[in-house]
């Protein structure tokens, strides 16, 4: 049974220039309750203060479970969340 005190894992992925700036491709974060993308980002910055500038870039795009998501979208335990700059393929 999940209680309010049990932290659940969220898998974070970073791509492109963001991955290079953070020097990190993936990171696992524990959350105690569902959070919005915006709250998740704040939580992540509290754990990794040096990532603040790179993560507070308005151009960054977020995806939850491989679907593009807005800042208010809710993230829960077990989700995969990706952050990346605008795409440049082709």
């Amino acid at each position, binding site marked *: 049974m999940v209680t309010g005190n049990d932290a659940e894992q969220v898998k974070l*992925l970073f*791509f*492109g*220039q963001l991955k*290079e700036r953070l020097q990190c491709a993936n990171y696992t974060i524990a959350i105690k309750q569902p959070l919005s993308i915006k709250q998740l980002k704040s939580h992540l910055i509290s754990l990794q203060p040096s990532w603040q500038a790179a993560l507070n870039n308005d*151009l960054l795009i977020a*995806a939850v479970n*491989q679907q593009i998501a807005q800042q208010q979208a809710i993230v829960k335990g077990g989700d995969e969340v*990706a952050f*990346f*700059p*605008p*795409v*440049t*393929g*082709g």
Partner: protein
Amino acid sequence: MSIEITISHDDFDIAVLHDALQIGNVQQGAVVTFTGLVREFSQGDNVVALELEHYPQMTEQLLLSIAEQAQKRWQLGRISIYHRIGYLPLGEQIVFVGVSAKHRQSAFDGVQFIMDYLKTQATFWKKEHFSHSSQWVEFKASDLQAQQKWMED
């Protein structure tokens, strides 16, 4: 009707991809293909290579969704999208998009639509390598405008 999507480090053979669009496909009178290449000059410097990365699984899903939209909109027959990743030296092939359709205009439009959406929506990121430096490619507003014009029709 079929959609083939490949993302690979390996190079592709245009003849093989073209054959797959054409052979045994007698209902359709047109095949149009596009191939994107690593070109030499960008922002005043000589490119020696491009490096491409992507978000596995999400990219394939996005490309499938783009191809399905094109197929529906222009009643396309076969669609083939091949995108390379990894380190691609000057002159290498990057991307192939090919479609078959009953008529020429639908086939041309289908390929343009797929490329415009691929460039603005598919989760690929490109880095340019110069002789002594490298730089991530910036998103271009002109690419977004090209994609948005399909929404006006």
